[in-house]
């Protein structure tokens, strides 16, 4: 099942949502302020946030005037185009080392799906023939190391680990030497979940980043910020602080197999110019897909499709 279908499946089960009500304004017959108010409200109900909701509605209004659109059935399409536009700015490519191992750091607040996303990425790249090493850089949370180790076993890749309470930077250091001696292509570094408002934990992350930079010049080649699709406006603050501390190069949006639409990604991409690179669609290792702006927008606006 593709992203679109999974998304749709989630949506079908959540008709009580405002998105479900959008059907209302495309049947109304006339394009007026009420229609745009409904659109704004629907966007707010998808976690798009006030500023971006207003902005998107303005984009649609402008496109409608410019193209002399009179049929409200066209509006969802215009809205979708505006979303795709907003999401397509930054470069969605993954970056790799020109030679030697590539190192990716995976960061985010607690429980968003970092460790699981690492397992999915490891599986994805192993399938492409790359040799992957996992670095158990969460030395803090209870059984975080065991969790990653179990994933490593399932996927069939090595896990570099220290004991609980060890310095995570030292784990990364060891993973780099292990990757060199074992000729690995890719090091995926797990990190402990941390709230961005905790300065000491953010400093620790900066230190991990610095060690990677020093021990493997050119790295980290990717710093992926994991965001839970169910998160509301706080994700903006997460993106801002993580970007400042470790220079985030891409976003993974997880748990899109639920009913949450991950709409907060829109203001993040728009304001911070960080590309969404992957979406997580379940708890298994193959529940990961490259981000597709159109599918994402289309899934959110699936009513548009149904109206055809």
């Amino acid at each position, binding site marked *: 099942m593709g992203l679109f279908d999974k998304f749709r499946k989630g949506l079908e089960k959540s008709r009580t949502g405002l998105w479900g009500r959008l059907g209302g304004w495309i049947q109304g017959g006339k394009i007026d302020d009420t229609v745009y108010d409904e659109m704004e409200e629907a966007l707010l109900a998808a976690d798009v946030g006030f500023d971006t909701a207003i902005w998107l509605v303005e984009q649609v209004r402008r496109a409608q005037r410019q193209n002399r659109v009179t049929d409200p059935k066209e509006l969802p399409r215009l809205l979708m185009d505006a979303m795709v536009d907003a999401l397509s700015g930054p470069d969605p490519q993954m970056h790799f080392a020109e030679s030697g191992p590539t190192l990716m750091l995976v960061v985010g607040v*607690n429980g968003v799906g970092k460790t699981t996303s690492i397992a999915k990425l490891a599986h994805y790249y192993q399938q492409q023939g790359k040799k992957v090493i996992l670095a158990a850089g969460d030395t803090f949370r209870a059984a975080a190391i065991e969790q990653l180790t179990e994933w490593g076993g399932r996927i069939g890749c090595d896990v570099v680990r220290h004991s609980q309470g060890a310095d995570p930077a030292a784990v990364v250091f060891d993973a780099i030497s292990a990757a060199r001696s074992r000729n690995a292509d890719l090091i995926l570094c797990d990190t402990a*979940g941390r709230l961005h408002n905790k300065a000491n934990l953010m400093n620790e992350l900066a230190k991990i980043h610095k060690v990677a930079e020093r021990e493997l010049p050119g790295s980290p080649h990717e710093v992926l910020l994991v965001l839970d699709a169910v998160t*509301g406006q706080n994700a903006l603050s997460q993106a801002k602080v993580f970007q400042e501390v470790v220079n985030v190069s891409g976003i993974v949006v997880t748990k899109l197999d639920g009913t*949450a639409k991950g*709409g907060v990604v829109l203001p993040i991409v728009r304001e911070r110019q960080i590309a969404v690179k992957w979406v997580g669609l379940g708890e298994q290792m193959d529940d990961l897909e490259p981000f597709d702006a159109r599918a994402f927008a289309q899934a959110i606006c699936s009513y548009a499709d149904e109206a055809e």
Partner: protein
Amino acid sequence: MFEGLSSSLQKALGKLRSKGKLTEEDVQAAMREVRLALLAADVNVKVVKQFVDRVRERAVGQDVQKSLTPGQQVVKIVHEELTELMGGSAARLNMAPKPPTVVMLVGLQGAGKTTTAAKLALSFRKHDHRPLLVAADVYRPAAITQLQVLGKQIDIPVFEMGTSVDPVRIAQQGIAEATRLGADVVIVDTAGRLHIDEQLMDELSRMQQAVTPNEVLLVVDAMTGQDAVHVAETFHEQLSITGVILTKLDGDTRGGAALTVRAVTGCPIKFTGMGEKIEPLEVFHPDRLASRILGMGDVLGLIEKA
């Protein structure tokens, strides 16, 4: 963001300062700011709408208390209504007339159930109970080990049966084990699940029928956005939850999901989680969260002084 809204709120309300009576337009302007504050805090749009309507009704035409400016009066009404919506005073846990008391923790993936299970056990022990933790998450890699590690940290027994047994049976056996150990509280940690996952939701229903828990607590991440309404609605429909625990309030989220969940389920928020360290849970204070949701702690401070 916090300070920004707080000051814009003050500014909007400040305009009302010189008035002796609040007119419709005065209140309209203030309500716009309140609406924005609630939306920025992730309170559900529908809930925001209803809420703002109610406050408007109360505020318009009301004579202003001598000690307050009209603006402060509106803030006071908003704060009162928010506090009321979140359940007024703190709620208590239902205890079994005949032990053991059984508590099931349920919720979405990563919400903080396992961590909260340990914290809750510690809270019970503080009140001279003898809790037992039951590891009924057989899906997430190392979920059982996680609970065991936490149990060991705080010296509370953990019952597990591995990962190839039906979680319903684990919960049942957990109660038998509690009786054997002389534990009077059983806390069941369940796997995270999506509210639309029929199979896993059904597993919870079966567990509930099998162990007739005294409390089914929905663990909700305070950072949750608008979807909190679906999540709470569905969990409540299927399990008749008895309360909510709000986690990760040590972050800078304003926690509007709490208001949504409360409004949708009518269930009280019983505790809050404030960190990763295993410490007893904090009792929920509706008034404090009300200030936080509005991002206007300092405004309230001013009113209290008035």
